[in-house]
């Protein structure tokens, strides 16, 4: 029984159910590990692979159940980058060219935290986005909207000691796609983060408050939990807004937190 006690100590009830349900062979005990793992998400707070409304998931989502594995040294470590790796840092996407890009200038800032609210300092944040007309500077983007010679649409930075990041950019336009008839993506910025471990890797998208396209977007709605979806929407923020200069939006990003105790000696 001591092994099962171990699981009870490190997991929320949802997490235990998720583990047992996932491996389905009663081998939950074998998941105990002696590194301090990362918590598993509460069901519904992350998307499933197969989400038929998102048509391209149909031929790309795995059909076999995932194999649940314990976190080992391989998963609790992960790539680490420093200032020299990101140089030159690009946090101001409005100053990458001779002129300024068209569009509503804005500041996007927030903190990268773990589930316990601890800041994640000095971690890479990468972003990419369409221009104000809803066009990406990409060979496969055939949307009949103008490119902006003064906008590349990508940036990368490191969070500071308090886990804070800050980008200056322009508000991306909405753009059509071919998922279904008259499909348009709500305005969004793509985000990519590493965090402290292989297990904390996250790619997500940030949306804007009040966007009427959110309700019909299969990607946004691929996350079943309503509160989890709402957390993908940035907050307009007067404190971040700079007079005469730029609107401010806040978007905090939460990466997985640690399980409470390493399972040293439990078997």
């Amino acid at each position, binding site marked *: 029984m001591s092994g099962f006690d171990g699981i009870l100590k490190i997991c929320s009830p949802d997490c235990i159910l998720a583990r047992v349900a996932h491996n389905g062979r009663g081998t939950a005990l074998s998941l105990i590990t002696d590194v301090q793992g990362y918590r598993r998400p509460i069901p519904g707070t992350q*998307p499933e692979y197969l989400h038929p409304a998102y048509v391209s998931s149909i031929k790309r989502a795995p059909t076999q159940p995932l194999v649940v594995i314990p976190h080992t040294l391989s998963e609790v470590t*992960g790539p680490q980058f420093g200032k020299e790796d990101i140089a030159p840092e690009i946090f101001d996407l409005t100053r990458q060219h001779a002129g300024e890009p068209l569009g509503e200038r804005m500041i996007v800032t927030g903190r990268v935290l773990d589930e316990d609210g601890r800041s994640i300092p000095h971690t890479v944040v990468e972003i990419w986005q369409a221009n104000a007309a809803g066009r990406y500077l990409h060979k*496969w983007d055939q949307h009949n909207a103008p490119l902006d010679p003064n906008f590349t*649409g990508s940036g990368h930075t490191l969070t500071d000691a308090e886990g804070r990041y800050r980008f200056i950019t322009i508000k991306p336009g909405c753009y059509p796609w071919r998922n279904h008839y008259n499909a348009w993506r709500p305005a969004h910025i793509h985000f990519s983060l590493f965090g402290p471990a292989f297990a904390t890797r996250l790619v997500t998208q940030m949306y804007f408050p009040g966007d009427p396209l959110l309700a019909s977007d299969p990607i946004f709605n691929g996350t079943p939990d309503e509160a989890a*979806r709402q957390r993908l929407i940035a907050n307009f923020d007067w404190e971040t807004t700079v007079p005469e200069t730029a609107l401010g939006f806040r978007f905090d990003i939460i990466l997985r937190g640690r399980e409470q105790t390493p399972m040293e000696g439990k078997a």
Partner: protein
Amino acid sequence: MKLQPTSSQTVGPFFDIGLRRFCCADLLVPGLSGSRITIEGRVLDGNGLPVPDAVVEVWQANAHGKYAHPEDTQDKPLESAFKGYGRIATDDQGRFRITTIKPGPVPGPRGTNQAPHLEISVFMRGLLKRLVTRIYFPDDPRNGADPVLALVAPERRGTLIAKAAPGQPDRLAWDVVLQGAGETVFFDC
């Protein structure tokens, strides 16, 4: 305070605008120890068609079995120029190629050892969250005692083990098969 992790969203079709910065198909650095290998493969969808817009990421230990990470406290040599990280976008035919060294074994749960392996993330349009898998090495006797391979049904383990080209043990092939016969084993991790 208890927060919930931010939901994952797809990388979409245009990721290489944003992810170009850390693209790296060749992990080698001058003076690196270990035997040099290349791993070539394709990402294939449920129709067997190549996926030309996937990105494959690698995380691995060095030849001594040491990760370039502060939580790896093993008393093994760290080769500080070696990040152990790669990021490769697939080409128009869904192909990718990784040049690196074979990692050493690393510790597993409860005193076990894990056979040499690469940790792999795969991102693409159509996937609302990444796929996680591993690449193991052919004919490595340590595979038989690997605690993660042991969690995989024996008939599917082969999808995690690269194949060597005839007579060329350093030239490996490994595909990501998203669906159907030979579907790659993916992990919940």
